[in-house]
C-alpha cells in the first residue's frame, strides 16, 4: 500500500512537472512566434536578396516572408481573390502600375496618406503616378520607361545606320531577314504592350483627357500601329511563337532577334554574359518617328486587410533606401525611384545607354492605368490583338471593337 502511494505520488509529481514544462514551453513559443513577421507578395523582379532581408530582420526584428508570383497578372488574380474573400494575401503587396487602378477601386490596398511621410515621397520619383483621386495608394520603388533595345553587332555587320522612322525600321528588318542573318528580327509579343509601343511612338495618343478612346480614329497612331503590328507578323518578321508565348525577352537574350521591346535598365541583363548571349552588344534605340513611350513603374502597397500595417510600412521605408534600390538595379535592371540613388548610379557611370535614356525620357505619355476598368481593357486588347495577328479580324475591326469595349466599360463603371 505504502509503496503504491509513494509511486502514485511520484507519478503525480512527474506529470505535474511535465505539464508545467509543457505550458511554459507553449507560452514561450507563443511569445517567440509573436516576433513580428510580415508577408511580402511580389513578382520575381521585385525581390531583394536573402542577405538584405536578413539584415532587415536584424535591424528591426521583423521577419519577412517573400512569396513570389510569376507575373503581374497572376499576382493581380491572387490579390483580387483574396480581397473577395476578405483576407490579406500579404501585408506588403508589389503594385505594378498596371494594377494600381484595380487594387485601389477593389479596396485591396489602403490609402497611404496618413501613414507615409511627405519627406519620403520627396526622395522618390513617380509618387504621382500612384495617386488616384488625389489619394496615394503605394510608394514607388522603381521607375521604368518602355524602350527598344537591339543587337548592335548585326547592324554593324550590315553597315546599316540606326533607323529613325518606322519605315526605315521595317525596311531594315526585312533586309536582315532576307539576308538570312536572323530569321525573326523583331521580338515583340502579340499583346497590348507592343501595340502601345508602336502607337505612342507614331505620335498617337490612344486616350483623350476624359479617357475616351482615340485610337480607332482613321489617322490616329492607334490604327496605324495595329496595321504595322499585323504586317510584322504577316511578313514573319516576328516569330509566330510570340502569339502563344508572349514574353519577348528570352528570345532576345538567346540571340534570336535583333530588336526587342525592353525597359529602361534592361541592358543590365542584356549585356551580362551570364544571362544573355548577345552581350556586350545590346544598345538602346530612341523610339522611331515621334519617339513617345510610356512608363511602367512599380510601387509597394499595404493590404487593406493586414493587421501589421506599421511593420509593413517599416519594410516599405527600408525598401526605398539607396542600398536596396541599387541592389534591385544590379539584379534586375530596375531603376531606383530613389532620386539620390539614381543620380549616384548615373555619376558612377553604371547606367548604360544613359544618353539615349535621357533623351527618351523627354517623350513620355500616360496610359490610363488609374481607371478601374483598365485591366479588363488590357485583357481584351491582348485577346483582340491575338485574333488580329492570326488574321481573324482586320486592324480596323480590332480598334473598332476595342473602342466599343471601352465605351461599355466606362458606362458600367460610371
Amino acid at each position, binding site marked *: 500500500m505504502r*509503496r*503504491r502511494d509513494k509511486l502514485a505520488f511520484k507519478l503525480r509529481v512527474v506529470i505535474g512537472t511535465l505539464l508545467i514544462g509543457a505550458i511554459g514551453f507553449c507560452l514561450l513559443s507563443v511569445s517567440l512566434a509573436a516576433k513580428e513577421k510580415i508577408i511580402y507578395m511580389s513578382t520575381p523582379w521585385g525581390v531583394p536578396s536573402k542577405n538584405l532581408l536578413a539584415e532587415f530582420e536584424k535591424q528591426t526584428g521583423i521577419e519577412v516572408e517573400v512569396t513570389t508570383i510569376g507575373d503581374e*497578372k497572376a499576382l493581380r*488574380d491572387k490579390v*483580387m*481573390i483574396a*480581397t*473577395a474573400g476578405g483576407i490579406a494575401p500579404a501585408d506588403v503587396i508589389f503594385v505594378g502600375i498596371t494594377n494600381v487602378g*484595380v487594387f485601389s*477601386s*477593389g*479596396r485591396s490596398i489602403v490609402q497611404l496618406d496618413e501613414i507615409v511621410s511627405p519627406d519620403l515621397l520627396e526622395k522618390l520619383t513617380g509618387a504621382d503616378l500612384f495617386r488616384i483621386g488625389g489619394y496615394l495608394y503605394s510608394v514607388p520603388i522603381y521607375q521604368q520607361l518602355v524602350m527598344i533595345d537591339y543587337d548592335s553587332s548585326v547592324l554593324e555587320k550590315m553597315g546599316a545606320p540606326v533607323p529613325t522612322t518606322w519605315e526605315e525600321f521595317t525596311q531594315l528588318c526585312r533586309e536582315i531577314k532576307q539576308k538570312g542573318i536572323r530569321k525573326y528580327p523583331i521580338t515583340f509579343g502579340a499583346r497590348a504592350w507592343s501595340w502601345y509601343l508602336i502607337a505612342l511612338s507614331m505620335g498617337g495618343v490612344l486616350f483623350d483627357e476624359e479617357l475616351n478612346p482615340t485610337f480607332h480614329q482613321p489617322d490616329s497612331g492607334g490604327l496605324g500601329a495595329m496595321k504595322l503590328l499585323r504586317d510584322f507578323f504577316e511578313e514573319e518578321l516576328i*516569330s*509566330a*511563337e510570340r*502569339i*502563344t508565348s508572349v514574353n519577348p525577352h528570352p*528570345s532576345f537574350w538567346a540571340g*534570336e532577334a535583333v530588336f526587342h521591346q525592353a525597359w529602361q535598365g534592361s541592358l543590365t541583363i542584356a549585356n551580362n554574359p551570364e544571362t544573355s548571349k548577345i552581350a556586350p552588344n545590346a544598345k538602346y534605340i530612341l523610339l522611331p518617328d515621334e519617339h513617345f513611350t510610356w512608363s511602367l513603374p512599380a510601387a509597394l502597397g499595404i493590404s487593406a486587410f493586414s493587421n501589421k500595417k506599421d511593420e509593413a510600412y517599416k519594410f516599405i521605408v527600408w525598401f526605398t533606401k539607396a542600398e536596396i534600390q541599387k541592389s534591385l538595379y544590379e539584379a534586375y535592371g530596375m531603376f531606383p525611384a530613389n532620386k539620390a540613388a539614381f543620380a549616384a548610379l548615373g555619376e558612377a557611370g553604371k547606367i548604360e545607354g544613359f544618353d539615349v535614356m535621357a533623351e527618351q525620357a523627354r517623350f513620355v505619355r500616360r496610359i490610363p492605368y488609374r481607371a*478601374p*476598368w483598365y485591366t*479588363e481593357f488590357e*485583357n481584351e486588347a491582348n*485577346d483582340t490583338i*491575338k*485574333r488580329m495577328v*492570326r488574321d*481573324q479580324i482586320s486592324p480596323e475591326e480590332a480598334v473598332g471593337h476595342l473602342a466599343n469595349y471601352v465605351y461599355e466599360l466606362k458606362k*458600367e*463603371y460610371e
Partner: protein
Amino acid sequence: MRKRAPLQAPSQTLRMKIRNKQKWQRSLSVIIDNQKWLAYLILAPVVILIFFMAYFPAIQSFRFSLMYYNTRLPERIHFVGLNNYVRILKDPLFLEALKRTVYFVVIAVGMILGIALAFSLVLNKSFKGRSILRALVIVPWAIPPVINGFMWKWLLSGDFGFLNGILYQFGLISSYKPWLKDPFMALNWATLTFVWRFTPFVTILLLGALQSIPLELYDSAKVDGAGARSCLWHITLPLLRPMLTIALIIIMIFAFTVFDEIYTLTGLDPATKTLMMYGYELAFEKGRFGIGSALAYVIGIFMFLITYSYIKSIYREVKY
C-alpha cells in the same frame, strides 16, 4: 529485494468499474451491430466534410450567380436575380466557347474510343511482353495534366520542337512551322493533348470488358466459318456496347472540364477558350464573380445531365 503485492479481492470501486465497462461495451455493440447506427456513424463525418468542401461553397457561389459581383467595384454588389444567366446565354463569347467545347468533346470522344478500342483489342491477344506493354501504355494517364500541357507545348514549339524536328528530318517539311498559330489547329492540338493522356484509362476499361467475353463464342463462330472481321462486328462490338457507353460518358465528363492542360498549353488564348477557360477568365481575370458563377452553373447543369444519364445507363446496362 522487491516483493510482489499479494492478489487481493477486487475492491468496491474496481467492481463498479468492470460493470460500467460491460455496459459501455454493450451499448457500443448495439451501435456497431445495428445497421442503421453503424451506417450513420460512418457516414456522419463524410457528410459533414462534403457539405463544407463542396455543397456549402456551391451554395455561396450560387448566391453570387444571382448578384452583380464585380470585384473592382465591391460597393456595387447587388441582387440581380436570373439576369446573369440571361446575359451569359446571350453572350456571343459564351456561344463561341460552347462551340469550341462541343467540338473538343466530340473529337475527344471519337478519337479516344477509336484508339482505345484498337489498343484494347491488341492487348487482349496473348503475346510475349504483353504485361510490359500494358504497363507502358498506362503511363500517359499518370502524368499530371499541367505537365502534359507543358510537354506538348514544347513538343509543338515552332523554334526547336520535336514535331518540327521529326518532320524536317524525314523531309516532310522544308522549314519549321508554328503549329499553334492557326486557331483551329491550336484547338485540335489541345484536343490531342487531352486524348493522349486520357486514352489509357479507357483502354483498360475496354480491355476489362473484352476479357469478360467468353472465348467459346469466338470458337463457335470460327467453326461456322466467320472471319476476323465479322467476329469483331457481330460478337465483340455488341458485347462491348455497355462498356463503350460508360466510357463515352466518362470521357464526356472529363473532356468538358479540361482546364490544366489548356492553361499550360495556350493559356487564355482565344483560340482554345473552352467553357471552362472562359469561365475562369470571367471569374478570376475579369474579377466578375457574378457572371462567372452563373456560367459555372450553366456548365454544371450540363454536367449534371450527363452524370444523371451516366448513372441511369449503368443501372440499365446492369439489367442488360
